[in-house]
């Protein structure tokens, strides 16, 4: 545990010592702010954060891999991975430490955007249930996307490869419902079950960029379902495990 926190703290400090955290936060606030305003500025609009959530889940497809692309790729490029792997650390401690750093940074970013909630309370009467479930869902969604991004970062020493592969996997999981629509029966259901939650119809103000029937839709509505929690937890766990395996495999090359 001590090693995990040592690595996490070092990575968080690196995030905030470089422009990375600030640039990404600014972009995150701007984009989610745009969606938030668009969703609440109609007359009779619902006082909810659904617009904000839509922007957030959409943007994280690209933002999460951007945050994580450095984490392992750079260690390989600088050669410092050799130091980490010859220190008395286990691979999973390295992976969990780095994942936690990215996750905490993302939570800080989400925290910064919570003034939207304040605005809702000042000018309206929002329903507190969907608000809390939405934020819980967003945190779980963030964890899953960061795990995918971290895995992509472990694949090569090139950060851009990490970004493209990470966003690629996330995009594939997002547009999987286009494919399932054209199939029928079990195949369609299986593919649907993997839908990540966001939707590329993000500018459609009816769906608000959250895929109907996807794993995020219930969270946005105020329903916390075990299936959705299990889905995001599994994606997170599987990709972190894959990252550990990639690092372990590196030794055998």
């Amino acid at each position, binding site marked *: 545990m001590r090693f995990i926190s040592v690595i996490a703290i070092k990575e968080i400090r690196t995030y905030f010592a470089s422009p990375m955290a600030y640039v990404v936060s600014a972009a995150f606030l701007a984009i989610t702010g745009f969606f938030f305003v668009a969703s609440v500025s109609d007359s009779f609009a619902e006082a909810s954060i659904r617009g904000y959530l839509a922007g957030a889940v959409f943007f994280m497809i690209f933002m999460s891999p951007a945050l994580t692309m450095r984490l392992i790729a750079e260690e390989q490029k600088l050669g410092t991975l050799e*130091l980490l792997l010859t220190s008395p650390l286990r691979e999973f401690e390295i992976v969990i430490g780095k994942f936690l750093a990215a996750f905490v940074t993302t939570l800080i970013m989400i925290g910064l955007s919570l003034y939207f909630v304040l605005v809702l309370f000042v000018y309206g009467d929002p329903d507190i249930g969907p608000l809390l479930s939405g934020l819980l869902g967003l945190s779980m969604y963030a964890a899953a996307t960061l795990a995918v991004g971290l895995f992509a970062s472990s694949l090569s020493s090139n950060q851009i490869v990490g970004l493209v592969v990470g966003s690629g996997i996330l995009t594939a999981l997002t547009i999987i419902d286009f494919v399932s629509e054209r199939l029928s029966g079990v195949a369609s259901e299986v593919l649907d079950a993997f839908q990540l939650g966001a939707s590329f119809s993000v500018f459609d103000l009816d769906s608000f960029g959250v895929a109907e029937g996807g794993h995020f839709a219930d969270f946005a509505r105020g329903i916390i379902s075990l299936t959705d929690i299990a889905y995001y937890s599994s994606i997170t766990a599987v990709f972190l495990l894959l990252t550990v395996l990639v690092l372990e495999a590196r030794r055998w090359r």
Partner: protein
Amino acid sequence: MIKIEHMSKSYGPYPAVIDISFEVLKGEIVGFLGPNGAGKTTTMRVVTGFTPPTEGDVTVGGYDVVSHSLDVRRHIGYLPETVPLYLDMTVTDYLTYMGEIRGMNSSWVKERLPKVIEMVRLGEYQNTLVGRLSKGYRQRVGISQAILHEPDVLVMDEPTIGIDPIQVVETRELISNLGEEHTMLLSSHILPEVSAICKRVLVINDGRIVADDKPDDLSEKLQHAERIEMSVRGAEASEVINAMRDISAVVDARSDKRAAVMQRAEREDFSPFIVDARPNVQASESIAKTIIENGWGLSNLTPLPMTLEEIFLELTTEENLGE
């Protein structure tokens, strides 16, 4: 401290190290000598637990590098060939972090760090970003991270590569001093460095250990080619060389092109030659006889002790010379 038995390591179908065995005793400084691509780095990576051997047993301090990798890594300080540094951290932050991931607690780091910084003379740069340091200073930071956690065994891969000559001298001194309290395995492709620092030299080539000796004894024991310097007049250079090559004890002969020798010899119309002969066959006698029989003039005939550099070249480039 380090024991390698019949270790082989292949990368896919390519063998990097083939069936090597050696032992480094506690307190020994062993130099690992070989050209680029000989297998030095691979061997060191196996010893440090970075990569497992394909075959054979490797133990460090009694711990197996595969089954007790974490124990091995706790006892080793490692300086890889490309000094791995986080360029955006200060020297102090970097070393503190390295200490912590080596399992040091913060009070130990606080107590030990100033001593190490003093030892490698990094004092005035301790709050500088690592990325702003010159190569020589980065090397010192690299050495610092290797010794910070007071490891029993130090493994250094080419510690003086790519730094300027003055800093090379300082770095060597530093390493020599470290050798007084550590067991050390140090690789290099620079011979004087190894003979200056190490008490024992392992020569590796093409993944095999071709020599294992004290630097002084290496030249004596490995005289599979005795080298003789001589000056001859009254014949064409090619005639002399051919005549030499006909002698059964001689391996090779060539004109000696070193300028100083040429000048000295030419004043008296002597041409200088270098003759490589088989060991222990009294080649000088047959060489002298051949020259006299041909009616040429002979001014000197001197067996030369081989420098480590030449032995290294012989060992690694002309392995089959003696056979």
